[in-house]
């Protein structure tokens, strides 16, 4: 098995960049939603919960197509964004990041929600008697205690984002250097005569990244339990 070529490196680096941005940007939203679902009751809560989990259940191509309809250059939101703010998602790496973020969102929210639920509310009560306003209770008690769970969710979301294919290729196609992630590159390569060696290299890189991500996620999850027991 020979060296990784420049085209392959481009795909790998693009995948890493897209997945990192997708995860980092999705995380604040993930925390906010996880908090709402864990700690608040409101009309429409189960609908919100269902919508958060939709990308997990819908065929990825459907999600990608919906993104295209809404945020493509001629989509009802995308057209406005392009004209007024010059922001374009379709067929750009930003769109790849968006598609990956959307697809990995359910996997991000779940562990965060669970870790927030696991934070002892009695500790939050104690904090409020010590003068902490609700947002400060969240920032100084809830969030730090939920942090390892948040990190576990982020790593899981990252692993999903790196592997995302269906929604990405539908929304942003397969443009080398711009939207050709590891998955799309492999997809192209297996359709090419003598692309098999290159495909294999990328497959192995994929497996390594995914394995590392899963191990890291496990480690953070264990840290979460330790932390809650004050060790």
């Amino acid at each position, binding site marked *: 098995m020979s060296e990784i070529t420049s085209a392959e490196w481009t795909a790998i680096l693009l995948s890493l960049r897209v997945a*990192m941005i997708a995860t980092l940007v999705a995380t604040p939203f993930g925390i906010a939603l996880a908090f709402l679902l864990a700690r608040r009751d409101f009309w429409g809560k189960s609908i919100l919960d269902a919508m958060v989990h939709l990308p997990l259940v819908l065929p990825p191509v459907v999600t990608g197509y919906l993104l295209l309809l809404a945020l493509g*250059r001629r989509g009802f939101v995308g057209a406005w964004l392009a004209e007024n703010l010059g922001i374009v998602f379709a067929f750009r790496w930003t769109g790849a990041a968006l598609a990956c973020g959307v697809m990995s969102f359910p996997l991000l929210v779940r562990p965060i929600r669970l870790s927030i639920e696991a934070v002892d509310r009695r500790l939050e009560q104690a904090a409020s008697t010590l003068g902490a306003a609700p947002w400060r209770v969240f920032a100084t008690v809830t*969030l*730090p205690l939920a942090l390892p769970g948040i990190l576990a969710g982020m790593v899981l979301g990252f692993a999903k984002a790196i592997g995302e294919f269906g929604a990405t290729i539908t929304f942003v196609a397969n443009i080398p250097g711009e939207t050709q992630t590891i998955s799309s590159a492999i997809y192209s390569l*297996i359709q090419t005569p003598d692309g098999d060696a290159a495909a294999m290299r990328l497959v192995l890189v994929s497996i390594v990244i995914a394995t590392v991500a899963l191990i890291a996620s496990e480690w953070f999850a264990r840290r979460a339990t330790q932390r809650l027991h004050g060790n």
Partner: protein
Amino acid sequence: MNRIAGVFAALLMLSGTALPADAQDKTVTVFAAASMKNALDDIDAAYTARTGVKIVVSYGPSSGLAKQIEQGAPADVFISADTDWMDYAIAKKTINEPTRVNLLGNEMVLIAPKDSKIDKVAIGNGFDLARLAGDGRIATGDVKSVPSGKYARAALEKLGSWQAAEPKFAMADNVRAALTLVARNEATLGIVYATDAKVEPGVKLVGTFPAGSHPAIIYPVAATTTAKPGTTDYLAFLRSMAAKNILEKYGFKFLLSPTT
């Protein structure tokens, strides 16, 4: 807490710079029919060596590419494997019409896996493709949209072979995917371009479809309405002697008189 926010911000900035700043001005983005892959890669390498301009190519079925361009994909050049999809793109006002030229021609061939027991056949009226395929599948591009599939169907209908053979078809995303199916022995037969059969050592040529059995295979090339300035130079290169030599080496018919 601040420490965490700091790490977060650092990661965000790091990923923003993970790739070198898009040298957008010094690239030309080409959306090309899948069958162009090997030939066009060579041409692009020659062009980059000559001018330093990087060519980024997205290969795919002409149908898919035309629709992506319609949806706003940032292509500078569109090379289609049939005139239908170029006309479609023109109708959708995504093509700079005066730049359109019919650049290449090709042939449809019947292929089988390299080790197949199927021997050469003459393809003419009444050709019994279904019997030749036996229990196996016939791979080709989607006959509803992909140019190679459309040509295949047109030819088989003309020759009277379509009805019997249709149930045995395995339709792939694009012609190269069909080619790979045959090379991997997943399909007993395949209908692809002559130029595809040439580049895949895993298949052998079993027959050629007579030119009259299908609409003339024409590959139009054009610049899109959003093409960057450097595109004109690239298009000129595609019409040059250097490009012609490469294309003919791969089995394409060059339909124009080459410049320089």
